[in-house]
């Protein structure tokens, strides 16, 4: 296993011809980097543009309102993603139907249900979630932009689809990794598959599922900010604009706002996780 990884690494390394010298930057580039870094401690509080048109909102207002848009896109994408993750996660976990003997000795619909329908649903949902996951949100954004133009729906879908796939995969794994004995016990007392899933399997996985969802929300905030590069009015849009007008102080302001949001979420998810701990 480790050997395989090492071989893969060496192969990729030589194939790409990675060499330290490649990193030697142009002196101009270094200068930009230096100027940019120099502003880290002095982010702009007001616009740094040479010409500010009449009626332009103040910089801090733009920063906060684009932070709000970033949050909204992330929240909308994430809630749709959660919905997809929960539904697909149910179908792509096996623990609620595997090993049940309902109607095994019949040649009837109930046998077909257990032996054919559930495995097919399982396989189908795994294919779907892998298709959703295997494409990065940025590529989904490009796709939806082409299809729908610069609409909010495009941005939300671009987040929701890959996130939904990832959540479904992780949720189903978390559920399938919990101990199955309590589920079997409820099954033995007549509970249905969906009931054992909801009340024996999910409760055990729930603290992990919640913790992971918070983490993905953090990721969604960053993805949402990045979507600004395509023109959505999130932090990314203003970061790009300020960067290209060389107003590095403004860039830092936006970055700090993003960092602040992520930190708040991190703190919140920590608090929730501590409450759920045994």
């Amino acid at each position, binding site marked *: 296993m480790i050997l395989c990884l090492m071989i893969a690494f060496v192969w990729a390394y030589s194939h790409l011809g990675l060499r330290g010298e490649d990193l030697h930057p142009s002196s101009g580039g270094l200068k930009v980097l230096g100027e940019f870094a120099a502003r880290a401690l002095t982010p702009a509080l007001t616009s740094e543009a040479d010409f500010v048109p009449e009626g332009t909102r103040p910089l801090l207002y733009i920063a906060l309102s684009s932070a709000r848009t970033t949050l909204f896109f992330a929240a909308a994408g994430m809630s749709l993603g959660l919905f997809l993750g929960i539904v697909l996660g149910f179908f792509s976990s096996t623990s609620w139907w595997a090993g049940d*003997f309902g109607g095994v000795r019949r040649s009837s619909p*109930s046998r077909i249900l257990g032996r054919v329908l559930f495995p097919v649903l399982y396989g189908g949902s795994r294919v779907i979630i892998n298709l959703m996951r295997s494409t990065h949100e940025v590529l989904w954004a490009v796709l939806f932009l082409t299809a729908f133009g610069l609409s909010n729906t495009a941005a939300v879908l671009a987040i929701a689809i890959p996130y939904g796939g990832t959540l479904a995969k992780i949720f189903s794994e978390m559920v399938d990794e919990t101990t199955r004995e309590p589920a079997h*016990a*409820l099954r*033995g*007392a*007549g509970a249905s598959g969906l009931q054992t899933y909801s009340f024996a399997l999910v*409760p055990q996985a729930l603290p992990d599922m919640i913790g992971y969802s918070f983490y993905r929300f953090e990721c969604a905030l960053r993805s949402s900010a990045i979507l600004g590069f395509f023109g959505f009015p999130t932090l990314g849009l203003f970061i790009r604009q300020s960067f290209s007008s060389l107003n590095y102080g403004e860039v830092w302001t936006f970055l700090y706002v993003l960092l602040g949001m992520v930190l708040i979420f991190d703190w919140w998810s920590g608090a929730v996780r501590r409450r759920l701990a045994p």
Partner: protein
Amino acid sequence: MKGTSLELDGVSVQYGNTTALEAVSLSISAGERVGLVGPSGSGKTTLLRLLNGSVLPDQGDVHVSGSPLYTLSRTDLRRVRASIGFVYQDHRLVPNLQVSQNVIAGQLGRVSLLKSLRMMLFPSRVMVEKAHEILCRVGIGEKLFERTDHLSGGQQQRVAIARALFQEPQVLLADEPVSSVDPARAKDAVELLTRISREENLTLVMSLHNLDLAREYCERLIGLRRGRIVFDEPTSSIQESHFSELYRIGEGEMLADGA
């Protein structure tokens, strides 16, 4: 009708190369209290699990109240299972739910998904009072709202019994209901199960390692050895020799067990 009959008809169960049960036939009538005894690995757990349809026999049939368990449709199987309470050796409670939720989960087999959501998340006062009453009956009424995994092994076992009772079963199956508690409580647990089954006229089948308890509380004893029935008789006609036969160490068995 209270109480339900149970029947095994030439049942064999195979786990890979191990034969857990071989051509076992027995019939238990409604309201009987039966003890299963036998050395470790003799097939007691397997036999109990057959009775609520959680092990698929390789041969033979299992009948509960006359219905062949493994030919029932899913819905019918659910209905039959809902009438069978099982107290597991390892409790099988959901560790991070409240005691009340684990008890109430006993009734899942009787309700629709929507109703079960309400029942598990926002149980009605009546439900909670009923759960509390049953917990009082098994002696841990004060633990109603505790997290289940904060309870001791013996207390969790009582929760498991309470869950089975909340099910309002016709049959109670108990697998080693004494293994996780001290000797005094062991007797309590067996006493409790017997008393309840007598009061409510439930069929009771329990596996017991403790032969004295088995003799004291069961009216009929079934001895298992290497997956076969060695004896099946009313307790009154059981002799010491029955037990010594059951636990006799056969040729090569020491080696086989040690392997």
